[in-house]
């Protein structure tokens, strides 16, 4: 009886021991998996961070915003704007625009005669900030090429010719998403505006003022311009939701000298 009981106890004891051993093994395996997961996870994360940092640095080097780039001779507003009309005019109208932007084209068409009159009688100075943020809307960086061409014309031929060229660019505005006007066409329009072909040809094809255009765009962004056309009259930003409304405000300001 006692022998029999003792056998049962031994059997029970060894079963418990085996279970405990299995539990310990399982726990060790769990710890080992956990350790492995942590190591693998840490290694993968480290690799991803390195890749991410390298890619970010490479990408940031493509962004030349703010690097020094000579402004065209005759630029106003700290060298960021192309002027039209006398600096002494009592109304200064600042326009941020992109030659690829259709609303800018509509705004230009709607205000052309008022602005022309104001410039002619000396009461208005336009300050055009030409941006390139719509470069992605053409297949040939048309925004940058056209703004560069305007800078070249201002630099070599002065503000009167630049204003005529600026207007011609909007009158010949290409469709959004197209290749835009070719460099040859830009040159032809510059010549039509009165610029000597020999003086502007090189700068247009060399993209002489590309960095300046980048900087004008960067400055505009820092000054809170988030869309085009953005229009300021004597430094005060016009709030508006439609081109017609903007044009009406410009008409009124020019009429009242506001």
């Amino acid at each position, binding site marked *: 009886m006692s022998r029999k009981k003792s056998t049962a106890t031994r059997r029970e004891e060894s079963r418990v021991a085996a279970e405990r051993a299995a539990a310990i093994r399982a726990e060790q395996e769990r710890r080992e*998996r956990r350790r*492995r*997961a942590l190591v*693998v*996870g840490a290694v*993968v*994360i480290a690799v*991803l961070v390195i*890749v*991410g940092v390298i*890619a*970010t640095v490479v*990408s*940031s080097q*493509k*962004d*030349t*915003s703010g690097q020094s780039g000579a402004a065209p001779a005759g630029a106003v507003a700290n060298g960021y704007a192309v002027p039209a009309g006398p600096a002494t005019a009592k109304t200064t109208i600042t326009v941020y625009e992109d030659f690829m*932007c*259709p*609303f800018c084209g509509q705004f230009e068409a709607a205000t052309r005669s008022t602005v022309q009159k104001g410039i002619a009688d000396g009461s208005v100075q336009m300050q055009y900030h030409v941006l390139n*943020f*719509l*470069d*992605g809307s053409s297949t040939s960086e048309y925004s940058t090429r056209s703004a560069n061409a305007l800078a070249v014309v201002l630099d070599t031929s002065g503000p009167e010719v630049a204003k005529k060229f600026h207007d011609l660019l909007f009158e010949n505005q290409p469709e959004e998403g197209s290749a835009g006007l070719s460099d040859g066409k830009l040159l032809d329009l510059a010549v039509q505006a009165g610029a000597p072909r020999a003086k502007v040809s090189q700068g247009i094809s060399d993209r002489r003022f590309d960095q300046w255009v*980048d900087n004008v*765009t*960067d400055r505009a*962004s*820092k000054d*809170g*311009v*988030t*869309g*085009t056309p953005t229009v300021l009259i004597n430094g005060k930003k016009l709030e508006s*939701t*439609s081109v017609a409304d903007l044009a009406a405000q410009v008409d009124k300001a020019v009429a009242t000298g506001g």
Partner: protein
Amino acid sequence: MQWSSALGVLARLVVGGVWIVAGALKLPDPAGNVRAVRAYRLLPETVVPTVGHALPVLEILVGVCLVCGLLTRVAALVSAVLLVAFIVGIAAAWARGLQIECGCFGGGGGPSANATAAYPWDIARDVGLLALSGWLVWRPRTPVAADNVLLPA
């Protein structure tokens, strides 16, 4: 395949795919990304360029991780955090009456007369993606995932 497994795989592909597309569309225009970040007027100027340059890279990495099922829980967590940040950003722009393009898939700072009409849709999309990301944080184990090879259960 259980429905929860199917949902997990679907969530990975949808959320990861959107991140990859969003990042890849932004990558070619680093200056534009910086302007888009700046347009929200939420971050100090000192960090704006870094955020603008790093964001598309981070988006692509998170997207690739999700699509491959690599470190799914961590990637889903980062995805959720980014989405919350974007929802806050868009809501803040909306509330303050800023008329900006969200810049969600590149661009940003464009003509934005109907920006206010787009904000609810941008937010709704991000909330949907956030829900899928949250599911993956909760249930990161899915079939056909790098995790299953790298970190067997």
